[in-house]
């Protein structure tokens, strides 16, 4: 379980996060949604320690990440997997080397054991046999899947996903969403997804937090979202004519 308490973050004069608190349960897909500039990526970065919050606490199963020193943070980071918006695969490494990299750094497994784990992860994301390809040789969807394989290689307890469907066609986006959902349930991971993709929201949004202007504006499930009377959320979710028509049919 991850708990965030009263997170504030300011860049210069601009206050991006204004006291956000939330709880993310293990085995749940929690989605942070909001428009551009609402602070969702900043919140994610504060949670994983890429940004230091000005105020507040981030608790990983009771361990306050913000109060830990560099060495203590490493222990928690070994339990974190993250899929980045652009996949963030290491260009100079093959798919196999990318997935094996955290294993090389933090385990004493021999090469055969590591290769077994790499192949398991690749198999899990339906990319078996792609070991020797370089990121430049992969499609956007394949990169995301390799990113997921790398994120789960160390069997993480917490999975963070930043805009998993950006730049993907709708069909591939559903494959990625389903994969994240399956992995979360299968390994009982605490998964936090930042997205503005409404397909993800309706598809895998077991718990949704809507950010507006750096504040938590609304919290609920994907079933609640169609019936909310929150004006800002309605403006965000039903911005397109397609979603408006879908709502009218409900």
């Amino acid at each position: 379980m991850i708990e965030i308490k009263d997170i504030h973050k300011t860049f210069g004069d601009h206050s991006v996060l204004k006291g956000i608190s939330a709880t993310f349960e293990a085995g749940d897909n929690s989605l942070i949604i909001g428009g551009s500039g609402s602070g969702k990526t900043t919140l994610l970065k504060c949670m994983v320690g890429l940004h230091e919050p000005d105020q507040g606490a981030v608790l990983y199963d009771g361990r306050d990440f913000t109060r830990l020193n560099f060495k203590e943070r490493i222990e928690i980071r070994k339990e974190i997997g993250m899929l980045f918006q652009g996949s963030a695969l290491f260009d100079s490494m093959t798919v196999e080397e990318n997935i094996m990299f955290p294993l090389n750094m933090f385990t004493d497994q021999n090469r055969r054991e590591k290769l077994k784990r790499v192949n398991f992860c690749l198999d899990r994301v339906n990319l078996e046999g792609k070991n020797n390809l370089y990121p430049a040789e992969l499609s956007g969807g394949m990169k995301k899947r390799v990113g997921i394989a790398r994120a789960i290689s160390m069997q993480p307890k917490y999975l963070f996903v930043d805009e998993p469907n950006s730049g993907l066609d709708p069909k591939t986006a559903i494959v990625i969403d389903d994969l994240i959902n399956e992995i979360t349930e299968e390994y009982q991971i605490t998964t936090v997804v930042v997205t503005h993709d409404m397909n993800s929201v309706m598809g895998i949004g077991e718990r949704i937090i809507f950010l507006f202007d750096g504040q938590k504006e609304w919290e609920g499930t994907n079933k609640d979202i169609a019936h909310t009377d929150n004006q800002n959320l309605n403006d965000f979710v039903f911005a397109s004519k397609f979603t408006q028509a879908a709502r009218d049919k409900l």
Partner: protein
Amino acid sequence: MIFYPLGKYILLLKAVFRRPEKWNIYRKEIFHEMDSIGVGSVGIIAIISIFLGMVTTVQTAFQLVSDLIPKSIIGSIVRDSTILELSPTISAIVLAGKVGSSISSQIGTMRVTEQIDALEIMGINSPGYLILPKIIGAVIMIPLLVIVSIALSILGGYIAGTLSGAVTSNDFIMGLTNGFIPFTVTVCMVKSVLFAFIITSVSAYQGFYTSGGALEVGISSTRAVVVSCISILFADYLVAQLLL
């Protein structure tokens, strides 16, 4: 104004020299960097050094018009100027362009494509993993490149001097061997190590703190070369003042 980036640079270096997670991974990276920085730069250093020696010899001979000055002095001047100044400094400036811009753009691209964030999330000390092998690789290989440069520069000077008839073979060799002060080689090596450190650390700093996109990576790369070159010249003067 200068203190903020200087402070950031010092803090980055502190992170760079933190104890590595796994030495065998770093060792592999160090060998890779030694190959990339050292072996990959032999060609350009060789070409520049030969011409540098040739030009130094021809121009020194052109200025020595007095019959009272022995021709062997050309060899001595080529030797000392090559060892003390031309080989370490010109090589460093060339390497700042070749190696420095490459380091800066490589790390800068990793920054803007979130690869550095990915390292951080995994719990890896990204400055250490990305920069330390480059610094160690350069500090080992650049002095060796400078030694190669000195040898080729003197060889170039010998060839140009004898072929043009500006100095005889015997006079040039006599000039090379007479009055040689071994301490000049020590100064040269001190400079080489210092320049290697400057090229890699300054370029890595510029790349590491890149923000934005492709345009900013290019700007960081240019800034890495400019700042490295100025720092090299400043360090050059400092070492000369302190050691000579």
